[in-house]
């Protein structure tokens, strides 16, 4: 009877093969690119084969009985119904298999918990719905946000190769280096998972978890959030870019300089603000307030024609900087640079039919941020 199920499945497989090649089909756990991920894969395969062996024996006996001990073949029922020996045997044998299995599992687990002597410490912070990476001993700190356009998600455009698994700023790390991740979250619980590294750890608001990896091969490794964290749960991927140590050294220096430059407050024109504002809005605000500013009332209010966007500019900056208590609106003072905030406020006041015509300058935002109002 299982054969029927299997052939039905394979028939369906053939029928439904419309949009991607068979070669791309993932069937099994990845071996990954670290020693640990390979150990985990090894454990997975061992326990899998043990399970298959048990299943073959159990289902084999069952199938044999179903075929040969059926009434329609004239089988007469035996009357045995107890055997202490057999019961003890099939309690002990599984127990021994389990002990055999527990030994390598324990060893791997002990290795996974040894996060000491890391050369690089990176803090991973989960936000609804993006990741923040802070290189603890460097002056580098950035957010990593989904770049798949909303049009692809809404089926208005063809989906790209890395649909839902692409971000603006990947986490860049060197190969052959012990990297320690310190994981936490700002709002709800998220979980940071990159299958190729066999690292999955929950990020919990108010607590710091620890994990580590040593990547063997340069490459781009993709993962996703694996703890339900609200409506954007499926839209906060993780991209890790592993590069050579030299490349990493160059990258981290450049990043530090670029970020220092971005923190400087410079004057920007209205056009510059609007252009930057649109991209900031798309990555940070559109998930709730929607690309066209219409929001999703009552939880996420519309910005087009809203009292805030058309009211006093200081109040508008304030709500972006500090969020709104008791609502889903978070504080962006830590998340966005002052020029980003100036840009997005300007954009919101002058897009989708909002026509205030005024602009927020980075200086003004900085002033307001420092005054704490």
């Amino acid at each position: 009877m299982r054969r029927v199920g299997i052939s039905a499945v394979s028939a369906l497989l053939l029928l439904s093969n419309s949009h991607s090649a068979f070669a791309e089909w993932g069937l099994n756990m990845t071996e990954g690119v670290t020693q640990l991920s390979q150990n985990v894969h090894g454990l997975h395969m061992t326990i899998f084969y043990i399970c298959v062996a048990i299943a073959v024996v159990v289902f084999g006996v069952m199938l044999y009985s179903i075929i040969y001990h059926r009434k329609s073949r004239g089988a007469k029922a035996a009357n045995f119904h107890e055997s202490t020996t057999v019961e003890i045997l099939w309690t002990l044998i599984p127990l021994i298999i389990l002990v055999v299995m527990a030994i390598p599992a324990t060893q791997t687990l002990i290795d996974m918990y040894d996060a000491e002597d890391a050369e690089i410490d990176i803090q991973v912070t989960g936000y609804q719905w993006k990741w923040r990476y802070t290189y603890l001993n460097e002056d580098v700190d950035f957010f990593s946000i989904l770049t798949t356009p909303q049009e692809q998600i809404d089926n208005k455009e063809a989906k790209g190769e890395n649909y839902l698994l692409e971000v603006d700023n990947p986490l860049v790390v060197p190969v052959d280096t012990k990297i320690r991740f310190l994981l936490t979250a700002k709002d709800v619980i998220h979980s940071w998972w990159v299958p190729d590294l066999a690292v999955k750890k929950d990020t919990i608001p108010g607590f710091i978890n620890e994990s580590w990896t040593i990547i063997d091969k340069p490459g781009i490794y993709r993962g996703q959030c694996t703890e339900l964290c609200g409506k954007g749960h499926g839209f906060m991927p993780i991209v890790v870019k592993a590069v050579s140590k030299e490349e990493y050294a160059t990258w981290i220096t450049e990043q530090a300089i670029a970020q220092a430059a971005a923190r400087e407050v410079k004057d920007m024109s209205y056009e510059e603000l609007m252009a930057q504002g649109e991209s900031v809005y798309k990555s940070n605000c559109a998930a709730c307030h929607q690309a066209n500013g219409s929001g999703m009332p009552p939880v996420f209010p519309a910005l087009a024609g809203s009292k805030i966007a058309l009211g006093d500019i200081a109040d508008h900056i304030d709500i972006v900087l500090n969020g709104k208590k008791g609502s889903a609106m978070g504080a962006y003072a830590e998340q966005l640079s002052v020029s980003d905030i100036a840009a997005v406020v300007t954009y919101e006041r002058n897009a989708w039919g909002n026509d205030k015509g005024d602009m927020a300058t980075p200086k003004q935002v900085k002033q307001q941020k420092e005054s704490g109002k």
Partner: protein
Amino acid sequence: MSHAIESADHHHGPDKGFLRWVYTTNHKDIGTMYLLLALGSLLIGGTMAFVIRAELFQPGLQLVDPNFFNQMTTMHGLIMVFGAIMPAFVGLANWLVPMMIGAPDMALPRINNWSFWLLPFAFGMLLCTLFMDGGAPNFGWTFYAPLSTSYAPPSVTFFIFSVHIMGISSIMGAVNVIVTIFNMRAPGMTFMKMPLFVWTWLITAFLLIAVMPVLAGVVTMMLMDIHFGTSFFDAAGGGDPVLFQHVFWFFGHPEVYIMILPAFGIVSHIISTFSRKPLFGYTSMVWATASIAVLSFIVWAHHMFTVGLPLVGELFFMYSTMLIAVPTGVKVFNWVTTMFRGSMTFETPMLFAIAFVVLFTIGGLSGLMLAIAPADFQYHDTYFVVAHFHYVLVPGALFSILAGVYYWLPKWCGRMYSETLGKWHFWLSFIGVNITFFPMHFVGLAGMPRRIPDYALQFADFNAIVSVGAFIFGLSQLIFVYNLWRTTIGGKGEQATDKVWDEPDGLEWDIPSPAPYHSFQEPPQVK
């Protein structure tokens, strides 16, 4: 049933019409209502599964927005667990426990009435949240804080109240089962002569009494956090979000066994009857059930391997979880040995019972894989887990309920169901369930997280197959509904004999079919 009422029960009978069902204290009426409630919930929860699978048929967002998708996964889980599986087992217990132990009714009939009638209101309230401002609960059926507290929609308060009411109902139901079994067994029926369904339900009832208050506790802590300014689960106020998970899973893991132990009982009866052979290893079955129940209290954190438990904790929960495989294995081996050298026939209940053994074993084996903590880092919260628990709950718990209904229906209503329709129902369900849940193992291993409304392209083909399977499985349940209607209300099907099957074992087969309103007026003697 009317024949039985007039002859055997002339001093008092049921009220007429609708009020009969409101006022009834009869174990059979209440059992029927529980089963109908479960069937209704199954259809509602199934419709929600259709919404989920329709959205996931292709990548991209087609039908629903992510927030509504989360409401569907949450409500589907809650309704199937608390509305379908649990009430169905209580319904079966109501019908069968008195008949199996030779009693006229349950020990506490008025409590029985109340524990049923709480449920329609609890579920009515839960369903109402779908129409509230901000929508229904959208934080998963496991409702992890702080997503379910500080970040929850306002309807969470109604959800909490609804869970409280369900909990009260479950505890009263469990008390009733325990009191009935302890006090109303026929003379001569010692504990080690009790039918296995009675044994498994007795142990289940103790589990319910132990953990339902824990569930009530955890939702009350949520309520306090949301409305009264406490910080049980808020680190900013000195609390701990992980505490929520510990308390929830201390309830949640025994809950898993609450949903499977009675299934073990049902399947044991059916396999023995249709193999025409006594159950192999009755004593070891009882002990295995009891040890599974005890172990269920010390394995809860295997749901939390990735929350950052200390190494020692991780090891403890890995070992204790692996241990559960031993008594579970004993049960499976006993069933297979019962079939071995039997004289088997394959009526619908037996087909479902055999499918139960095969598919529940698959679910059990993937559970063993999940117990290996380092490997669980790759499995956790992916579709591999979804495949695992659906294998134990759908072809596990649900198939056992379907098998039980087919097996005892002729005793309940006095007529045979249509075997042809039953076989159609079985084969479509069996094929559908495997097309639905087997590929989930693959997408899970390949890296698809659970509870996402949209997915990367490499998961597309398997998801399409899964959705097709889900629709086959879901729609084939309508055959079951029709078969039930046809046999009971429709009055079709031949008259059932008192024994119904070929020499089945148990007191319920000694009374007429349909069973009289009060099963045993005179206690039978058990030798």
